[in-house]
């Protein structure tokens, strides 16, 4: 058997433990810094064990926020992020499910055109059309609204292709039988296809939740009022306080809180998520 010797196993574990240190190190240091007395942070480098100031700092940022940086209380930014992430994930899944259903189970003029229009969205990420997109959003009065934060991100070629791929593997006989039994299309979608797609939907939800939570440029464009800030973009306002040292303990507490929810989701749903990610890209 290859790779079974003790020496080799030891080397593998050492490499992996170094990997774990590399991956978790930056997060651990941030967490430790968030628990230190503010005066201690600036006097020496961060120790490896947490300090005793954590409860105070986290209570402060969650309730009061970061007044100097113009950031609202963190509970509000966390709530905004949660809403935005769930809305984007659910919206993308529903919209893509419907489009894939239309493309696979119906024949109609313009079907290929619709398919290509959806494909094109892959080639037009927000980053390459920042200014005109902002103009469109402003024109439609969507700046500083939850609509503006979520709806424009709900189109998804990847999710549509994933569902299309899945529907194509569903035996035609199932659909034919359903129709002969008098099932209407929407009943077929709801009672037969949807239950069959459960695993794909769960996997996509994790991927899209992380995607939505981690949006940065979009909320930056669409919000100017602090009460609409999401936590991932709000942290920038704390970093960019002109002419002063950043208050590192609050920033690191914010960073910790900003990465915790998506990290927990990914860890808890690892198996579903990994299979979904590897499948959806293939």
């Amino acid at each position, binding site marked *: 058997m*290859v790779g079974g010797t003790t020496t080799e196993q030891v080397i593998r574990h050492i*490499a*992996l433990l170094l*990997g774990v240190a590399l991956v978790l190190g930056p997060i651990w240091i941030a967490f430790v810094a968030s628990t230190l007395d503010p005066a201690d942070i600036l006097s020496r480098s961060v120790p490896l064990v947490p300090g005793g100031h954590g409860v105070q700092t986290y209570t402060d940022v969650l309730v009061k926020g970061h007044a100097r940086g113009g950031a609202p209380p963190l509970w509000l930014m966390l709530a905004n992020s949660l809403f935005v992430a769930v809305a984007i994930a659910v919206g993308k899944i529903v919209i893509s499910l419907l489009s894939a*259903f239309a493309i696979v189970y119906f024949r109609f003029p313009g079907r290929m055109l619709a398919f290509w229009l959806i494909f094109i969205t892959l080639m037009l990420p927000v980053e390459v059309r920042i200014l005109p997109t902002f103009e*469109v959003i402003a024109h439609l009065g969507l700046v500083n609204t939850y609509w503006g934060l979520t709806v424009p991100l709900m189109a998804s070629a990847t999710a549509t292709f994933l569902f299309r791929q899945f529907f194509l593997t569903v035996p035609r006989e199932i*659909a034919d039988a359903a129709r002969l039994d008098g099932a209407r299309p929407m009943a077929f979608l709801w009672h037969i296809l949807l239950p069959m797609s459960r695993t794909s939907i769960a996997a996509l939800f994790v991927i899209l939740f992380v995607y939505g939570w981690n949006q*940065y440029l979009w909320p930056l464009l669409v919000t100017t009022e602090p009460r609409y800030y999401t936590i991932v973009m709000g942290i920038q306002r704390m970093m960019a306080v002109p002419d002063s040292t950043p208050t590192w303990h609050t920033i690191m507490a914010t960073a910790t809180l*900003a990465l915790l929810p998506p990290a927990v989701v990914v860890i808890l749903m690892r198996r579903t998520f990994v299979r979904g990610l590897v499948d959806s*890209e293939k």
Partner: protein
Amino acid sequence: MARRSEEPVFPNRLLPYLLLAPQLAITVIFFLWPAAKAVQQSVLREDPFGLKTQFVGLANFHRVLSDPHYLDAAILTVWLSMATIVLALLFGLLLAAAVDGVLKGSGIYETVLLVPYAVAPAIAGVLWFFLMNPSIGTLSGAIKALGYPWNHQIRGGDALALVVAASAWKQIPYNFLFFVAALRSIPKSLIEGAAIDGAGPWSRFIHITLPLISPTTFFLVVVNLIYAIFDTFGTIHATTAGGPGQSTTTLIYKVYNDGFVGLDLGGSSAQSVVLMAVVIVLTLLQFRYVEKKVTY
């Protein structure tokens, strides 16, 4: 599957359009319209107050492409992408190769090594910015102890290294996952056969494993390239803000900065159009890979 394309399952005429409506409405309003506007504005020049607009043909493109700052940003983007891709792929592959043959605890490793995937690029930037802070950073302290006076607030090279470190760190889990999947799909008999023939672990890795996972590697290079060009915006904007000087101003950061801060509508739009061309090429490359996978 061939049969499906011939006849529809359901005969409805109006329903499919209703089903497609939400997706297409969002696509047209928030993707196609802005993209068309970018193309339109790229051939116009508007004065800073938005009072007058005139058609200038390709003048904006000429201005952008002959601007030395643009060239700098392009070169910087290439370096940043290459460094990020190499580091992220290398660490991803190394850890995947390590975990693939481990007898105990692979589940725990695979879970923990996944964590940075969940971290937003901007947050990854903030974490590393703190880690490398010239006066109090843990890592920068270690680097200074080795004799290098690290300071990303003054030295451009250090700032670039900071962005690369944060970006590569965030991307390791993605590459790790795909490499693990690729390594697991290699038949064990191939590796064992080579071992019986006397090939050592290193030679087996170079001559058997690497060629077999090359489709995955190619796919990951394209995905990582797209990531390095576009998703590093958050990392840069939240930390170095393109500086010091222009040392971390990538192409995307420049589109944002010229458009939003510099209010150069025509120039920013021309840059957008150039970038769209880049994305189109990359997307087609990515899909070529998919096509190849299918015909296997």
